[in-house]
């Protein structure tokens, strides 16, 4: 090699080594110990949070990936985020957890209810957060589940699919769509003496799980079942509407977004359908009472849900209303608030164990047997340590449309578990 060639190679190698220094500084995921002897790794700093409540507390960063702009659940997701912010603000005002404030505002990303966008958003915030305070959507969370399991990232899902009972990293609250659907079918058959039921649902973990529950309960109770898959978009409900008008089932279980449900219910009512509708919890939005479908909704719509809606009468509901102050009530608020309780319990347990690393948080989650929901759910609902078959919470609520209630629905049947749900052998996800 010529001298010039050797010089060039030497220069290039030096530059290369110098540049690697820039890269290593960028990563911030070294394990360390803070002053109080608690081990930390990703997403926990001893510096205070931006806009911290307690200036001498450290900061735990939790991420949020939700449907904030375009997807079918945006009207619910925005209140969910607001309620979670209010919840953790209250925790911080009460002193934080183990000398740390919790920050849920810095790492918020939109997923547009699209698994690909959700995955991208997760990759973006993965290196900055200890865990996810919210990941919205069952199919979207499914897209990042393998990565979360590989990196020990715990997440509180804004979804209730039955597969979550079998995943350690998922901190679900409330019963899942499968049991909720079973309870609803049982109630509908009792109330309306239904002989034929139909499940109109989105594809994937959300709609498919509920449809599987409807199917299982229908088999157990001996009623006829039909399942119709439908897409997102109020103009895309033609197939579902056509199916309902042709087959005329007694009860239709709708597991879609609020706008699409209103389109289906309104158009079928206009087409002469006189059956009953029962919607899975995220299918309702109080704004639907102002749509042209309102008369049909008031006459024939019921809603199932994992807990009492916004106006409920428990210490937890009271605390939530107080913390939120003057907002347009939505059951997104209720959901976001309740979902945060297990994360708080897990963080407290992790701090008690002295291990606030990702692995430590996961261990704390696996050890949780009860969670204090301040009355919104029974404490046994927060059992993440036991076998899914025994520990899964199977009770749900049925509400009817009530214009006087804050979120447009009020309870007609409080937390109950049907025989079909209790008897169901829960050895694997329904979908």
């Amino acid at each position, binding site marked *: 090699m010529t001298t010039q060639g050797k010089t060039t190679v030497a220069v290039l190698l030096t530059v290369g080594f110098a540049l690697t220094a820039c890269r290593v500084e960028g990563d911030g995921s070294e394990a360390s110990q803070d002053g109080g002897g608690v081990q930390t790794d990703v997403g926990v700093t001893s510096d205070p949070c931006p806009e911290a409540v307690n200036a001498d507390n450290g900061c735990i960063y939790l991420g949020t990936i939700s449907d904030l702009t375009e997807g079918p659940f945006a009207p619910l997701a925005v209140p969910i985020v607001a309620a979670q912010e209010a919840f953790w603000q209250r925790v911080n005002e009460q002193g934080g957890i183990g000398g740390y404030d919790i920050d849920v505002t810095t790492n918020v990303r939109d997923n547009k209810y699209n698994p690909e966008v959700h995955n991208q958003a997760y990759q973006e915030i993965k290196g900055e957060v200890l865990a996810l305070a919210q990941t919205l959507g069952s199919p979207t969370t499914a897209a990042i589940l393998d990565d979360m399991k590989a990196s020990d990232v715990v997440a509180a899902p804004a979804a209730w699919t039955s597969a979550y009972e079998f995943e350690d990293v998922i901190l679900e609250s409330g019963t899942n769509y499968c049991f909720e659907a079973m309870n609803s079918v049982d109630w509908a058959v009792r109330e309306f003496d239904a002989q034929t039921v139909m499940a109109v649902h989105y594809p994937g973990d959300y709609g498919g799980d509920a449809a599987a529950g409807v199917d299982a309960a229908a088999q157990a109770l001996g009623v006829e079942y039909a399942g119709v898959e439908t897409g997102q978009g109020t103009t895309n409900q033609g197939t579902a509407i056509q199916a309902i008008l042709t087959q005329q089932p007694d009860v239709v279980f709708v597991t879609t977004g609020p706008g699409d449900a209103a389109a289906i219910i309104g158009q079928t009512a206009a087409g002469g359908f006189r059956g009953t509708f029962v919607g899975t919890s995220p299918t309702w*939005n109080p704004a639907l009472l102002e749509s042209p479908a309102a008369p049909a909704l008031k006459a024939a719509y019921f809603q199932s849900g994992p807990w009492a809606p916004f106006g409920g009468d428990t210490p937890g509901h009271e605390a939530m209303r107080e913390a939120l102050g003057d907002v347009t009530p939505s059951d997104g608020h209720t959901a976001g608030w309740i979902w945060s309780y297990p994360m708080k319990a897990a963080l407290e347990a992790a701090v008690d164990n002295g291990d606030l690393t990702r692995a430590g948080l996961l261990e704390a989650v696996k050890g949780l047997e009860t969670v204090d929901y301040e009355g919104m759910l029974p404490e046994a609902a927060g059992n993440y340590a036991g076998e899914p078959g025994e520990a899964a919470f199977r009770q749900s609520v049925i509400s009817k449309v009530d214009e006087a209630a804050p979120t447009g629905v009020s309870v007609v049947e409080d937390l109950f578990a049907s025989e079909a749900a209790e008897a169901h052998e829960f050895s694997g996800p329904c979908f």
Partner: protein
Amino acid sequence: MSELVEVVVRGLGTGSVYALLALGFVVIYRATRVISFAQPAFMVAGAAAVSYLSVEIGYVLAVPVAVLIGAGLALAVERTTIRPMIGKPVFVIAIITLGVDVVVRVFVNALIGADVRQLGDPWGLETVALLGVAVQQRFVASFVVTGLVVAALFAFLRLTRYGLAMRAVALDQEASMAQGVSVGKVFALSWALAGGLAAVAGAFVGTGSGIDQTTYIVAFAALPAIILGGIDSIGGAVVGGLGVGLVQSLVAAYQPDVAPWLGSNFQVVTPYLLMLAVLLVRPYGLFGTPEVERV
């Protein structure tokens, strides 16, 4: 039989919305030889305006005001972004209108918000009896209003001076300029008309289910309507729009039974297949004038 009547009325109702949008596309094309991809944005802008105004002044008064707003918006867009580009290749201007669509929709979506907004129309989902069949009032209303608007447009083009000027510019720009027609004013008028027509379309597209941030996609079905009707023919736009609406409605009603393997919501794709079928037979659309190219 009664189902067929209901399906036909639904088709004509949605077809009227497409016809209004298609008219807007064609009016702009005739004057400027450009397909403006900004029509979806003007449609949702008109719809959002109606949804806000109808709360204050009621639906019937809100629609004309929204038409004026839509026309004004289109005029503003034309003056700022299209005027400087006179003489540039047509493809470039078409992409600029695509950019305009994105920009206008950002603001309109901010107005609409995350929730579905209602337009406050008096028809809702109520039905009226037609030929002994219960059909939705909003489709009948949409069809009737569209008919009136199209008649007014034809009258304008036939009977007024500005209509004559627009027809002249559509035929031959240079000759019109030589005759003293202000071509710039005709461009502005075409865009304003298109914006107004899109606003009327928007006022009807949201009846029954409201509007949200994804409503603009409905407007893209008007593109096959103009192609199959003939891109420079006003009558073709109306026929194309109604035809597309009708075919969509028929497919939506009968395809799930006849051919379920085609998938759900096949009616979204049907306008494009229809357009392809027509183009294979008549490459310039049903009523379009063949282009003459010189070297």
